């Protein structure tokens, strides 16, 4: 112990078959690796899916994660995507409390972050934002004082640059 855990984004190409998600997720929990977020959907090839997993592990365990993932029969490829060499995005929906006095302010903040208002209710605004972890965190911090009622996140997805 005493070794610093770092967040790593792993892109895992898998066969698009029933049960594959359970195999991958089960591996993480069984071997004691913590998942921060997990996003999964079919790729450009219908027979393949891509899972993007953000894990919190130290270097030695990261190697084990890689090797253990590669041992799963349905896993085709595992790539580590460092932030500097990849495009990483997450989409988040916030439901924020509003009243006639704060509505304009909130819209302005969302605008600055290039977010979108996707729903207007009697006492709430629906906000959509796409970006990296830090950008989303910054917006969240600004929205919190108004009251974030609910939030839903897709988890990070990522692709290598170039």
């Amino acid at each position, binding site marked *: 112990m005493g070794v610093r855990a770092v967040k790593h984004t792993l892109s895992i190409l898998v066969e698009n078959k029933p*049960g594959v998600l359970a195999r991958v997720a089960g591996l993480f929990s069984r071997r004691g690796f913590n998942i921060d977020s997990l996003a999964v959907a079919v790729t450009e090839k219908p027979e393949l899916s891509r899972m993007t997993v953000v894990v919190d592990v130290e270097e030695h365990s990261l190697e084990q994660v890689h090797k253990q993932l590669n*041992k799963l029969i349905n896993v085709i490829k595992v790539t580590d995507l460092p932030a500097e060499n990849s495009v990483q995005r997450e989409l988040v929906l916030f439901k924020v409390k509003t009243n006639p006095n704060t509505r304009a302010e909130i819209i302005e903040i969302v605008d600055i972050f290039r977010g979108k208002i996707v729903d207007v209710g009697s006492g709430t605004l629906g906000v959509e934002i796409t970006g990296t972890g830090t950008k989303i965190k910054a917006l969240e911090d600004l929205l919190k004082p108004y009251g974030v009622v609910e939030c839903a996140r897709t988890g990070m997805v990522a692709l290598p640059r170039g």
Partner: protein
Amino acid sequence: MRMSGAEAILKSLEKEGVDVIFGIPGGVMIPLYDVLMDSKNIRHILTRHEQGAAHAADGYARATGKVGVCMATSGPGACNLVTGLATANMDSVPVVAITGQVGTHVIGTDAFQEADTTGITLSMVKHNYLLKDPSEIPEVMQEAFLIASTGRPGVVVVDLPVDVCRGELNFKYPEKRTRLPGYKPTTTGNARQIKAASKLIVSAERPVLYAGGGVVASGASQELRKLARLLELPVTTTLLGKGVFPETDKLSLGMLGMHGTSYANFVMMETDLIIAVGARFDDRITGRLDTFAPHAKVIHVDIDPAEISKNVKADIPIVGDAGKVLKEMLTALEPEVEAGKGKDLKPWHRLIREWKKEYPLLVPEGGLRPQFVVSEIYRVTKGKALIVTEVGQNQMWAAQFYKSTKPRHFLSSGGLGTMGYGFPAAIGAKVGCPDSLVIDIAGDGSIQMNVQELATAVIEKIPVVVAILNNGYLGMVRQWQELFYDRRYSHTDLQTNVSPDFVKLAEAYGAMGLRVTKPEEVAPALRRAFKARVPVFIDFVVEPEENVFPMVAPGASLDDMIGG
């Protein structure tokens, strides 16, 4: 060819060369059992518990090197298989299990005898399948055998819903695999790494070969022997590697680890180069990790990349098949040795000889000692028997005192340590190797965990000999209680003097039962048992509180041995 799902399963098994299946039928398996009844090529052995079927398939596989096959019905049948499958997978044994499942339309409804077999086994097998359509059968069966037997061998479960079994398909067995884009085990070692390893080997002054179950799986025993003899390398083997190098050879150090020989453990602590082949640095062999082999560089040959540098960091990792890599190493090393390269290992061998002289493994005297029983079994069988063990002290004494000289002649549950493994595994081994003398060296506790297989052995005429080292205790646990819990024997007294009477038990099943209480009775009893053409239980009433020594206490450094 048009046929039913059940016929397709059977046909696939025949295509894979399966000649025996161990199992028990049930409701959803009736269609498959129905076609099995008419098979001319496959023998089905009805065990009396599904755990017995799984262990028997495992024993068959370990003894023959072929894939073992077991079958069970849905729900309770599949659940009963699980321990046996986990046991096989932990020790990298190729087994294919076919489990019945409720119909596809009711899966997930808590239907009668429904269990989520693929879910339950997910984390403890190499791979599993839930068939959804009869047309998948040929590919899935072909893949199941391929995955079980290649790369690092393991267990594959094929879960077979009853309607898939009853449905129809056009059967065409794939010649080679058509799918599995993510499965490509590396078998050829990296040439540069092999070269670097060879350099390191000739420059070592205190090298040791540490070989494990992977050498058995690879069938690389000959190559390993060549390498050892070429450079005069001392060799130590794990519990699962026993026999890949003859323990009767002067280069052999026997088994290492928690109950290994003192000299093997000293060698590990003093060596400057560990050449690990098909062994996975299990905690039973490293002892305390941070003090393990402090002076050693490590060459690690393993077919599974995840094993390399998992517990002990490898300086030269070589991913590949043991046999192939060793061949390459020999090719690289032979000219070096001819050219007179290689260090003088005489001082190293001298040191090892001293350790061997000072800390030999000895049979204690007085009374009927379990160690004596094992050494008599060794003597009477001239070391030629196929030994299977249960788990506990009996297993360790078997490992210490039955010197192995051939691979696939010492079968034991190492990784999971499953009591009850030995007897059904012995049955499986005997079915696979009918000409071998198969002996299960058992404990009085372990044997009671699958004793129902006596009926299987008697009815199917599988004459295995079970040598029960009856100490009246769950001995290995009692030993820990004696040493580390102030002799507080909480629930380890089996009271076998009260129940059961193993002789009568054997006789009740139609087997032969013998009891031995004195040292001089051991050999005659063994000879009688080996001549009998029926299964035999020998109840060796041994010293109750004998301990297994040497012993590295859990968490202690490998050279810190009790009784060493």
